[in-house]
């Protein structure tokens, strides 16, 4: 089971070859416009590269139709965004339920044990009845992470998850991502500008001008 983007040849990306092992937590760093967001969008099946392959959990996101790509996204991908992107009219609980509803293809799966575990780990047990605007940024991002992981995706793609948070909330969110990775074996690919954020990942990839220029293990991981 590997995650693979091979020889993608678009303006944003040139010859990126990246493998992520199951259960791995990697950070992708690089300046704005280096192609890291494009890479994440391709990995998540939101964008189709002009050529190359992007394989998630054995399924190629590039070779298939739009509808099939959406279906792979539904079954295997969890997104976490810089701006949280929670549905503002729904409570935290409603946001989670909607993700489950979409993931279950219209069915609302019974998932009590896992859900309890997740909410405990993200310290959200008492926040579920609140709407996003009643929550702090850190809490909102934790709800967003819960929404991403509640459907047990093969991979979580986090796009600058701490970009809108102060340092205290950043640290908390990063620590929780690390915990999800370690305790649940959740595979995570995270984009960040911040070297301190990247430090929680086991491996950091550096990108520039659409290419991977450096990859190294994080000493502290």
């Amino acid at each position, binding site marked *: 089971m590997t995650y693979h983007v091979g020889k993608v040849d678009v303006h944003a990306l040139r010859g990126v070859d990246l493998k992520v092992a199951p259960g791995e937590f990697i950070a992708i760093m690089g300046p704005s416009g280096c192609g890291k967001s494009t890479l994440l969008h391709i990995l998540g099946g*939101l964008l189709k590269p002009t050529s190359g392959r992007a394989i998630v959990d054995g399924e190629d996101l590039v070779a298939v139709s739009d509808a099939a790509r959406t*279906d792979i*996204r539904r079954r295997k991908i969890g*997104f976490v965004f810089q701006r949280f992107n929670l549905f503002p*009219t729904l409570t935290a609980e*409603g946001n989670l339920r*909607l993700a489950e509803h*979409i993931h279950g293809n219209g069915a609302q799966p019974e998932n009590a044990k896992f859900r309890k575990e997740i909410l405990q780990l993200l310290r959200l047990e008492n926040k579920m009845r609140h709407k996003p605007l009643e929550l702090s940024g850190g809490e909102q991002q934790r709800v967003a992470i819960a929404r991403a992981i509640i459907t047990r995706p093969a991979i979580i793609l986090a796009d600058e998850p701490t970009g809108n948070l102060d340092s205290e909330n950043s640290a908390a969110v990063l620590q929780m991502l690390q915990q999800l990775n370690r305790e649940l074996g959740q595979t995570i690919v995270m984009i960040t500008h911040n070297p301190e954020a990247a430090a929680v990942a086991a491996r950091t990839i550096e990108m520039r001008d659409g290419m991977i220029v450096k990859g190294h293990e994080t000493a502290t991981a």
Partner: protein
Amino acid sequence: MDSLIISNIRQRPTRTLVSVTGVALGVVLVILNMALVRGMLNDRLRRERGIGAEIQFARFSSTIWSPSSVLPLDARYADRLATIPGVQIVSPVARFVQSGNSGIGLEQVDGIDFQGYAAISGLRVVQGRVFQADDEVIIDEKKAHDSKAKVGDEIQVFGRKMKVAGIYAPESGARIKVSLEAMQRAQSAPNKCTFILVKCVNPDQQAEVQQRINTTLPGNQVVLTRDLVTGFNRAVPGLDGFVKAILALSTIVSTLVILLAMYTTITERTREIGVLKSLGASKRYIVIVIEKEAMAISLIGVVAGVIAAFTAGWGIERATSLQLEYRWTWVLVAVLIGLVAGVVGSLYPAVRAANLDPVKALAYE
């Protein structure tokens, strides 16, 4: 999904209210207009039938539905009609149309020869007495009730005040009746009338009598009262077109309101649609989310519209002499138009939302 739809509807109460009102308006338009058309036609029909004559004899230039106020027919035809075999009683009627006392619609006045008319229709005066002078009228009970007129009161007829001499029953023809001579003098048309009522000896032979009248007095309009239903629908110019126009108007208004509301909604929620896509929602899922929201709005609109239509109808009947007659088929048509407008109006916004580029949608400010 349902909680998302409900929360979205509640999130924008003004938008929801405006769209609901738009759909409700379409429903009210259909129900009220159809009830009015039916009510007025059937009211007239009932009263025409209440006259009790099997045949009405008139000139071709005038129809009983839209008579000219100048009396076109020589009342002396009555004498000739009376000699035709099978004819029992004849009675000339002069009909005058004036604008309604409530300011809405038209009102008819019949000038009658009381003896003959009463013999044909069974009309009798239940309060007061029959008109005796030119400035006296008799009115039916509904007219008395609607204009709150009692015996001895004055009402407007021919543009002047006339005294209510009596109240009659049952309803037949126009609700206000004066003497034929008074009408002829008022119109400066001595010996003229609008049509002549013909009662047959044997109602089963009315067709034969009609045939005989046509042979004896060719070139005139000889109508069987039982054929008036279709006659009325034809005789009201453009009624069919009016009905179709109302239906089309209602459909267009409701559809456009929903289209605009949902189009605004998807523009406003572009990023949320991007998030739905990032969660793996299929095009179908997104179309359903938007269609369901539109359906919910039009459902509320339809219910509000039906309630508003019946309330307004009740008010109209109380405030004016207009009569409404509801038919469930038209209520059903109105409801269907509202719901179909919801589905059709939201189709374009829904498909547009489903086809949004997820990356662009997520980046939307």
